[in-house]
C-alpha cells in the first residue's frame, strides 16, 4: 500500500516544472515573461488560485504521508475533495484516482479508521466513474485480505468482477457459485484473473499467483505468454517487477543465455541499481560477444553508482576482478570511458580517507577489494590505497601484497608501468 505514495511523488516531480526565470542570452531576466509562458499550457488563461490551492494541498498531503502524519493528511484531504468540483474537466476526471490512492492510504494507517470506514469510502469512490470501479474493487479486496478477512475479500472480489464483467459484456465465462471444488475455485479465479490482467495496470500479486498456478498445472506456455505480455505490452505502465518475474521464470525454464540477457537489459535500463544486476553481469561476462563484455563493465559501474550498494562486497569483488580482466584484454578505452564521468565524484563518494578507515574497521575483505579498485583507477598514491596497504593484518597480509602487485601492474594512472 505504501508504494502508492512513492509512485505519486515520482509522478509529481516529473510534472513539476521548476519555476525559474526566463533567461535570454545576454543575462537579462524577464520574470514577467515566465508568467506568460506558464499560461501556454493553460491556453493563455492565467492559472486560477483554485488550482494553486489544490496543487499546494496535494503537496501537503504527500508530505504528511511521507512523514506518517495521518492526522494532518486527513485534515488536508478534507480540503482536497473540492477538486472533484473543479471547473477544469481534465483535473476533475483525474481526481478520483488520486483521491482513492491517497484516501485509502490514510485510512489504512490512521489509528481512528476502521474496516467500516474503509468500506464506506471504497463504496463511495467506486461510484465515481466506471473505469475506477474495478481497480478500486481489487484494491479494496487486497485491503480486506490484509486484515485477514479472506472470505469477505473473495466474496467482494467475485461480486465486483461479476458486476464488471456483466457491464463490460464479457461472455467468455459463466460464474458458478455452487462449485466448491478447489480446482474449480482456482480455475474460476484464474479465468477472472486472466480477464483482469488483460487490462493495463499494475497487478503484481495477481500475476505472481496466477503464474504460480499455471506452472503448478503445467501450463508453461500460458505462463510465458502472460509474463511476456505483462512485461512488454506498451499499454501497461513501466514496471520493473514485470521483468523480474519474467526473468525468474525463464531462469527456472533454463532459457538460453541470449534470452535472459535481453530481458535483463530492459531491467537494467529501468533500475540500474537492482541486485539482479550482478547476475546480469555474470551472464554478460560469460557471453561470447564483445559488446556484452563492454556492457558488463558498464553494468558493474552502474550498480556501484548507488548509495545502497556501496558496501556490497560481491560487486566490488567483481569489479576488481573484471577491471583486471578488461585491462589484460587491452580494453583500456572501455575503462577510461566509464571512468570519465565518474572520476569527479567517485573518489569522495567511495574512496575518501573516511571510508578507508570505516571500511577497514567494518569489513576488511571489502576494504581490500575496494583498495584494489582504487589503486587501479586512481593510482597507488591515492588515499584509500595507501591506507590499506599500510595496514598490517595477519590474515590478509598475503592478499594485500597481491593487491599491491596488481595495482603496480594494472593501474590506469600509469599504464603499463
Amino acid at each position: 500500500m505504501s508504494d502508492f505514495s512513492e509512485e505519486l511523488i515520482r509522478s509529481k516531480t516529473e510534472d513539476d516544472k521548476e519555476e525559474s526565470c526566463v533567461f535570454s542570452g545576454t543575462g537579462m531576466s524577464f520574470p514577467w515573461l515566465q508568467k506568460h509562458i506558464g499560461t501556454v499550457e493553460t491556453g493563455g488563461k492565467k492559472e486560477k488560485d483554485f488550482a494553486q490551492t489544490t496543487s499546494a494541498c496535494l503537496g501537503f498531503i504527500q508530505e504528511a504521508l511521507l512523514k506518517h502524519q495521518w492526522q494532518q493528511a486527513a485534515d488536508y484531504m478534507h480540503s482536497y475533495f473540492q477538486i472533484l468540483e473543479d471547473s477544469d474537466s481534465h483535473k476533475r476526471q483525474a481526481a478520483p484516482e488520486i483521491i482513492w490512492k491517497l484516501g485509502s492510504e490514510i485510512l489504512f494507517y490512521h489509528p481512528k479508521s476502521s474496516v467500516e470506514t474503509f468500506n464506506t469510502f471504497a463504496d463511495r469512490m467506486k461510484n465515481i466513474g466506471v473505469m475506477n470501479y474495478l481497480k478500486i474493487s481489487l484494491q479494496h479486496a487486497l485491503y480486506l485480505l490484509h486484515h485477514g478477512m479472506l472470505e469477505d475479500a473473495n466474496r467482494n472480489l467475485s461480486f465486483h468482477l461479476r458486476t464488471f464483467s456483466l457491464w463490460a459484456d464479457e461472455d467468455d465465462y459463466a460464474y458458478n457459485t455452487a462449485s466448491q471444488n478447489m480446482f474449480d475455485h482456482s480455475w474460476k479465479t484464474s479465468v477472472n484473473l486472466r480477464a483482469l490482467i488483460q487490462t493495463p495496470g499494475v497487478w503484481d500479486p495477481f500475476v505472481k499467483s496466477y503464474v504460480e498456478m499455471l506452472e503448478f498445472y503445467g501450463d508453461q506456455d500460458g505462463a510465458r505468454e502472460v509474463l511476456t505480455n505483462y512485461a512488454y505490452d506498451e499499454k501497461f505502465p513501466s514496471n520493473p517487477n514485470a521483468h523480474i518475474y519474467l526473468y525468474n521464470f525463464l531462469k527456472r525454464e533454463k532459457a538460453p543465455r541470449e534470452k535472459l540477457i535481453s530481458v535483463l537489459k530492459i531491467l537494467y535500463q529501468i533500475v540500474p541499481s537492482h541486485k539482479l544486476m550482478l547476475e546480469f553481469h555474470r551472464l554478460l561476462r560469460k557471453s561470447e560477444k564483445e559488446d556484452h563484455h563492454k556492457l558488463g563493465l558498464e553494468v558493474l559501474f552502474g550498480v556501484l553508482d548507488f548509495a545502497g550498494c556501496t558496501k556490497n562486497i560481491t560487486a566490488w569483488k567483481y569489479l576488481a576482478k573484471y577491471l583486471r580482466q578488461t585491462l589484460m584484454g587491452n580494453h583500456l578505452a572501455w575503462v577510461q570511458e566509464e571512468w570519465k564521468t565518474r572520476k569527479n565524484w567517485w573518489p569522495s563518494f567511495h574512496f575518501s580517507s573516511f571510508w578507508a578507515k570505516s571500511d577497514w574497521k567494518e569489513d576488511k575483505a571489502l576494504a581490500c577489494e575496494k583498495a584494489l579498485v582504487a589503486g587501479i583507477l586512481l593510482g597507488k598514491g591515492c588515499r584509500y590505497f595507501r591506507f590499506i596497504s599500510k595496514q598490517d593484518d595477519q590474515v590478509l597480509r598475503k592478499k594485500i601484497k597481491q593487491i599491491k602487485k596488481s595495482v603496480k601492474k594494472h593501474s590506469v594512472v600509469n599504464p603499463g608501468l
Partner: protein
Amino acid sequence: MDLEEAKEFRERCTQCAAVSWGLTDEGKYYCTSCHNVTERSKEVINTGAIPNTKIQAINRGLKRKRKLEKGWDWYVCEGFQQILYQQAEALKTLGVGPELKNEVLHNFWKRYLQKSKQAYCKNPIYTSGRKATVLEDNPSHSDWDSEPDLLSDFSCPSFVESGTDSQPDGHTPKPFPISKVSQSETASICSGSLDGVEYSLRKEKEIVKMTMPRTLAFCYLSLLWQRETITLSDLLRFVEEGHIPYINAFQHFPEEMKLYGRDKGIFAIESWPTYEDIYKKVIEIAKFLDLPRFPDITEDSYLHPNILCMKYLMEVNLPDEMNDLTCQVVKMTGIGEVDFLTFDPIAKMAKTVKYDVQAVAVIVVVLKLLFLLDDNLEWTLSNIAEKYNEKNKEDKPWFDFRKWYQVMKKSIDEKKQKWEEARAKYLWKSEKPLYHSSIDRAVVYKRREMVVSLQKQFSALVDSAPTVEKKSPSSFQFNWTEGDSARTCFHGHGLQGILKKKGQSLTTKNSLYWLSTQKFCRSYCKHVTTYEESNFSLSYQFIINLFSFLLRIKTSSLHEEVSLIEKILFKRKYGKTKKKSRSRKGRKY
C-alpha cells in the same frame, strides 16, 4: 387531460388497482380514480400529425420549464449592488464610519450606473431593447433601496458636501421591483439574472464593465475619499481573511435571487485579488467616473508616509528612533507633499500613490543607508553592537541587526508557513453548487453531495483539535511587547552604534550606498525595472521578501518602488549615465 391520450397505458394502479389513466401537464401518467401520479411518462411515438390542442398543451408545459428556478427577476448590476452593500457593511463592522456606506460608496455607485448607462439616465440600455421606463417612474430617496433618480440630480460633481440625508440602516435591500417580462431563452445558455448572458457578452470600449475585483476597487476609492485608516494592502488582507465578503459573496443574496448559468462566470470568482491588479482598477474606475480631486492627504492623515512608516516600523519590530530617519528621507524626496500624495484622477498623468508600498520602500532605503545591506557591513555593525550590549547591560541596548534578523526570520517563516497552509486548505466552492444549465444541474448537485459526504467522513478522523479561531481583524500582523523574553522587542533599542557625530549633527557610520536599479527602462513596457534576486545580497532579499509578504505584493513591485524613491533621492546621479554601481553619499540630519 383526456382519457383517450392515456388509453395505451394498461397497467393497474398500484394504489387502487384501477385501469384508468390520464396524463399530467408534465406528461406523466396519473390514475384518475385515486390521483396517484406515476413516474412513467408518455412517449411520443408518432411525431407526424399532432392536433392543435395538443401542441398548445405541450407548449404550455415547455414554457413553464423555461425558468429553471422561480424567483425574483434581477439584473446583474443589482447583484453587484448587493455585494457592494455587503462589503460596506463589513467595513462598518471593522470600524469605518457609516458615511462611507451611506454616502460615499453609494454615490460612487450611482455615478457608475449613470456613466455606464444602466440607470439614472434617460435611456438606459437593457436587453432585447426593452425600455426601462419602469425605473424612471419611481420616486427618489437616497438609500440603498432607492429607485434611481433622473440625470439632473447628479450634474454637480461636488461630493464633499453631500446634501443627501443619511437614511436609517436596517433595510434589507431589495432589487428594483420590476414586473415580469417574458424573454426568449435557449435552454443551453441561461442565467439566473435577466441579463446575465448578454452581460457577459457585452464588450463596449468606453464602458468599464463591473466585475468582482472592481467591487474592491470601489471600496478602496471610498476608503480613500474618506481617508480612512485602511490601506489597500490592509483591505485585500481583510478579504483574504474573510472579514470582507468577496469569494462566494453571492451566497448571501436574498433567497429569491437565483443564481445559475452565466451568472457563475460573473459572480463566482476563483482567485484572490492581487494588489497590482486592484490598484490598476482603482485608477481606471476613478477616471471613468470623472471624479474630482480627492480630499487632501496632509501630514496628520494616516496615509501620510510619516505615519505609515511609523506604523510599519512598529510592525516589523524596528527601533522607534528610525522614524526620524524615515521622516528625513520623506522630506528630502518631497513625497510627503500634499500635492504629491493627493489623488487627482483628472490630472494629466493620473496616478494614485501606493501609500503602503511607498512607506515600506522608504524604510528599506533607510535600512540601506544605515546598514548598506551588502552581506558584510550589517554583520560587522552587529558584532560591535553585541559587544557593547554585553558590556553595558544596564543601558539602553544598541540595535543589533543580527538579533533582529534572527527574531524576524523565525516569526516571518512561521507566519508564511501558516499562510501557505491556510491557502492550501481553503474551500473555494459554495455550499449551494452553481450549475451552468438544466443539463448539468443534477450532476453538479450530485457532485456536491459526494464531496460533502466524503468531507464529513474525513473530518471525523481529524482530531477535535483546537481549530484556528477566525482571527479578529487587525491592522497589525505582528505584535511586539516589551519584556517578552521569548520574542525580543526592538522598539526601544538605540541607534547609537550605527550613527556617529559630525559637528552639530549625527550621520550614519556607513557612508556607502548602492542603487537598487542603475538604469530605468524608458520604453513601452509597463515596468521600469525588473528584480532578479540573484543579483542582490541575501540581506536585501530577506528585507524585500519580508515586506512584500507583509503587504502581500510581488517582490518586484516593492523593488521597483524602492528604486523610484532612490531615483528621487539621488537625482543627480541619475542625471548622468553612471557605470559605477556604488555612489558615495553621507546623509546628515
